[in-house]
C-alpha cells in the first residue's frame, strides 16, 4: 500500500484528505506543521508528500527545501489556497501544484500520476 504524508494546519482539511485518500486505497499520515512533518520523515518512509504552504511556523516552501536537503527522492505536491505562490521559484521544486478546491478530482489525479510514474 502506497504511503502518503499530508502536511496541513487546517484540522478539517486533514480529516477530509485522510478519509478521501484512504478511500482511494492509500495509507495516509498527517502533520499539522513543518516540524511535525520532518519528525515523521526521519522515522518513516513515504511514497508521496502533499504540503500546504501557509502554515504556522516554517512554511511549506521551507519544508520542501529541508526535504531536498535530506536527499529524499519523494514526489511532492503543493496544495495551497493561493494561485500566487506559483510565481515563487521554490514551487518549481515540487512535482505538482494544486490549488485547494472542494472537488478533490485534480488532487487525486495528480497523486495517481506521480505514484505510477
Amino acid at each position, binding site marked *: 500500500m502506497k504511503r502518503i504524508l499530508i502536511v496541513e*494546519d*487546517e484540522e*478539517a*482539511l486533514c*480529516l*477530509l484528505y485522510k*478519509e*478521501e485518500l484512504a*478511500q482511494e486505497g492509500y495509507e495516509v499520515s498527517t502533520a499539522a506543521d513543518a516540524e511535525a512533518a520532518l519528525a515523521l520523515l526521519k522515522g518513516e518512509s513515504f511514497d508521496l508528500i502533499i504540503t500546504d504552504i*501557509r502554515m*504556522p511556523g516554517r512554511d511549506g516552501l521551507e519544508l520542501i527545501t529541508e526535504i531536498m536537503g535530506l536527499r529524499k527522492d519523494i514526489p511532492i505536491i503543493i496544495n495551497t*489556497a*493561493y*494561485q*500566487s505562490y506559483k510565481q515563487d521559484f521554490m514551487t518549481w521544486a515540487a512535482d505538482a501544484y494544486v490549488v*485547494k*478546491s*472542494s*472537488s*478533490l478530482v485534480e488532487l487525486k489525479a495528480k497523486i495517481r500520476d506521480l505514484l505510477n510514474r
Partner: protein
Amino acid sequence: MAFSAPDFQSKEPRELTLLSIISQSFFQPLSVEDNLLVILTALTSGSGVGFNRAMLFRTEGDKLTGEAWLGPTSAEEAKTIWEVLSTPGIGYIEIIEHNRWLMTKRSDSLSRSVKPLSYSLSQDNLTIPATSAARKEMLLVRNARQEPLVDPKFLEILNVEEFLCVPLFAQEKTMGLIILDNAFSRQPIVPKDIKLASLCALMAGNYMYAAWLHKQMIEMERLAALGEMAVFITHQLRNPLTAIGGFTDQLLNGRIEEAKKRRNLEIIQKEISRLEDVVTKLARFLEVDVRKTVPFDLKAEVLDVIQDPDLRQKSAGIEILTEFDEPLPKVLGDPTYVGEAFRNLIANALEATDQGGRITVSGRREDQNWIVVTVRDTGKGMPPAVKNKIFMPFFSTKDKGMGLGLLFVKRVMEAGGGRVEVDSDVGRGTSFRLFFRAGDEGRTDT
C-alpha cells in the same frame, strides 16, 4: 497661502528672487495645480519675468494636452490689471489669488480655449509647439505666420507673431510645455527673458517629476494593500470552502457510514460559522464611522476594558498595571470606538507576552494639547520588517488573525484628530503610544 510675501523690489538679482519664490512654494502644502500657478504667475507678473501670457501643457503618457493659460484677454484688460497690480501694497499673494480667479473662475478665461489642444508626442511629423516638448528644446518663433512648422490650430488660438516654447522635463521625462508671449505689450522676447524662463522651467519640470513620482508611489502602496487583501480573502475563504465542499460531497455520494454523517454536518456547520465570523469582523471594520468626538473620561474607559472578563481570562499569569495622572483631563474621541481600540491593543499585548510578563497602561498629560496613553508589554517584540507593516490592512502574524485590529486603532485615533506611534524591540517588548487631543480648557490650539 501661508508663506511670507516675497519682495520683488529687492535689490537681489531677479533670478535669485524668482528661485526663492518658486522653491518656497514647493515646500508649502499646496496642490500640484497651485504650485504650477505659482510658476505661471512668476513668469507673467510684471515684477517677475514679465511675459504677458503663459500657456501650460501637461503630458500624460505620450499625450501633450493644453491645461491652463494665464493672462488677460485683451489689451484693455491688460492695462487695467497692470494698473491694479502695481498699486502700492498689492503683494505676490494677491497676485496669485487674482490669477487663480483669472485662470479658473472666469467664464471667458483663456484656459478654456487651450483645453482642446492635444498632441501625440510619439508621432513622426510633429508640429510646433509639440516639437519643443518632444525634443526637449526651447524654441523661439519670431514670424509665426510664415513658419510652416507651426500648427495652424494652435496659432489661431495664440494669435501672435512671436512666442517662446519652453519644455518642462526632468530625468529625460517630458512633463509638459510652457508657451510665453507678449501679445499686448508687443515687447520683443530678449535673451534675458529666455534665461529667466528656462530657470523657471527647470524648477517646474523637476517639481512636476517629483509630484509624478509621488503619485506612482501612492499607487504602488495601494496595490500592495490590495495584494494583502487578496491573500487574506483567499486564505480566510478558500480553506473553509474546501472543507465544506469536500464533506458535503461525501454526504451526497452516499459512501459514508451513518455514524459519520452527523460528524460531517457538524464540521460543515463549524466552517460556515467561521466564514460568518470573517464577514462579521470585516463588516464591523468597514462600518467604522467616527463622526462624533466628545470629551470623555479616558481612564474610566481603559479600566473598563481591563476589567473585562474575556480579557481577564486571557491574562492569567500576566500582570496588568495602570499608572494615570491624577486627575487625568478628559480627551476628545468616540468613547465606544476608543474602548474597542484599547481592547485590541491589550489583547495583542497579552498574546505577545508570556506568563510572568507585565503590561503597563499609563496615561499622562504630554502638554496643554495632548494626552498620551501608552500600552507597553514585556512580550516578544517585533522585528522592523513586521513593525513597518502592522498598520497595513489584512497584514497579520497570527494564524487566525484578520489583520485589521491595529488598522482599526489607527483609524479611530486619526478620526478623533489624534495619532498612534509604536516602538518595539525583539525580545524586550512593544509599546503603543496613543495621542489624544485634550478635551478640557487647557488646550491652546482650538
